[in-house]
């Protein structure tokens, strides 16, 4: 009842002997270098490949990002295609509808580009510099922490609890970012600390 046909058996069945399918032996052989006007040029030729994993779900499919320009050579790099990594043990080159369209997330029209602030009562964002944003944010943090951190509880026990500012970590940042974030947040005494595990 069970179909127990191994890859090797299948290839015998199929009359092919190669490691993959016999696609390489479709009969093209050494094709002549004739210009075929009608078949589109292979768009990945001469591109830079970078290994990554899909940013969406926790299957963590292997992907190859194809770019013009190479970051490792100090160049600007523009990713123009993303495809599954056939070597990856889990996805074997496949991708789901989200993964197959990762390029549109990387180049989304609605990516954030510059630090912005929305002032109290305003109905719009205004562009600010990183320095302005970070200085203002840390000022607000320190003012709130200095005013509200609970150093000792009623029983006199040291509790170092800062309950009036919270931090919500994400779900797609790297472990390394997570660890750095953990260090910073815990050092301040923030207790309203959470991540996206629940939703």
């Amino acid at each position, binding site marked *: *009842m*069970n*179909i127990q*046909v191994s*890859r090797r058996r*299948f*290839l015998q*069945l*199929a*009359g*092919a002997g190669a*490691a*993959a*399918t*016999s*696609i*390489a*032996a*479709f*009969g*093209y052989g050494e*094709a*002549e*270098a*004739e*210009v*075929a*006007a*009608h*078949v*589109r*040029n*292979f*768009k*990945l*030729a*001469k*591109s830079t*490949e970078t290994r990554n994993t899909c940013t969406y779900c926790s299957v963590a499919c292997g992907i*190859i990002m*194809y770019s013009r320009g190479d970051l490792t050579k100090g160049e600007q790099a523009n990713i123009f*295609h*993303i*495809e*599954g*990594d*056939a070597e990856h043990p889990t*996805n*074997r*080159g*496949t*991708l*789901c*509808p*989200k*993964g*197959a*369209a990762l*390029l*549109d997330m990387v180049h989304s029209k609605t990516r954030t580009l510059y630090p912005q602030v929305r002032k109290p009562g305003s109905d719009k964002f205004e562009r600010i510099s990183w320095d302005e944003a970070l200085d203002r944010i840390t000022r607000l943090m320190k003012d709130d922490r200095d005013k509200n951190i609970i150093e000792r509880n009623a029983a006199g026990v040291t509790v170092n609890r800062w309950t009036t500012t919270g931090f919500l970590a994400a779900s797609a940042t790297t472990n390394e970012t997570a660890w750095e974030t953990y260090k910073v947040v815990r050092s301040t005494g923030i207790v309203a600390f959470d991540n996206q595990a629940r939703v």
Partner: protein
Amino acid sequence: MFPPLPNPDVSAQKPPLFGEQDLVRRSASRVPAPARQLTPVAKLIDVSKCIGCKACQAACLEWNDLREKVGVNRGVLDNPDDLTPDSLTVMRFTEWINPSTDTLEWLIRKDGCMHCAEPGCLEACPAPGAIVQYSNGIVDFIHENCIGCGYCIKGCPFNIPRISRVDNTAYKCTLCSDRIAVGQGPACQKACPTQAIVFGTKDEMKAWADLRIKDLKSRGFDKAGLYDPPGVSGTHVMYVLHHADQPHIYAGLPDNPRISPLVRAWKGAGKYAGLGLIALSVVAGVIHHLVQGPNRVTRHDEEEAERLAGDKP
């Protein structure tokens, strides 16, 4: 698992593995018999393994640098709800109550060009060289030769090609001829998470289909079978169906697709009056020119294209 192909080699721009010298058919014109015969290829779509995730739709759009407009929900999960000049493949969902078991079966079929061995589109096409067929079975549209007359749609037993309002030419799946020409499989096949789509030589695909059919029969699908319709001399896109005795339940897949007798008659006439056929195509071309204007992209066309692509009023 059907063995995946290695990742593409991107080190250099290599000449394609096949080209014009491998044409076996060319619309409204004749080609010399090719010097060699390529091994026929095929894409096998196993409907029983398909989870309707639309990865094939996404991969097709991404690879071919196409984008579909953001539409609306029409009370079903299908979206877009039909093939378009940009969406060269769509999933068609059918909620079917199996009368013999009284249980629901959710039949999900990836629709798109079947790459017929006898392509009705090509037979019907009056524009010389607008539709070609290679000896490996790929049927491709050559847009610079297309006059946008829409006869290919009439000729297609599967109702596949769609005319673009942007450049007024017909579009359909190329089987990713650009990928196959470098030894890769089509983008949809590579993406397909469950290997409901596999690709290889047509013989390999038939052998793989046999295994799948045996598995389905062991699970009680007595009528499981391969869809490789003889009415068009077989196709280079085939289906494994759990109910191969009734293809029409899969969103109207034709039970016995054939090239329309009208097109046949045309072709028959052409055999005896090749010149007449060419004349017809010239006439069609002229009419097209008079009605639609020359096939050059004008500023208006570009604006129109932007309007359509952006879905802005």
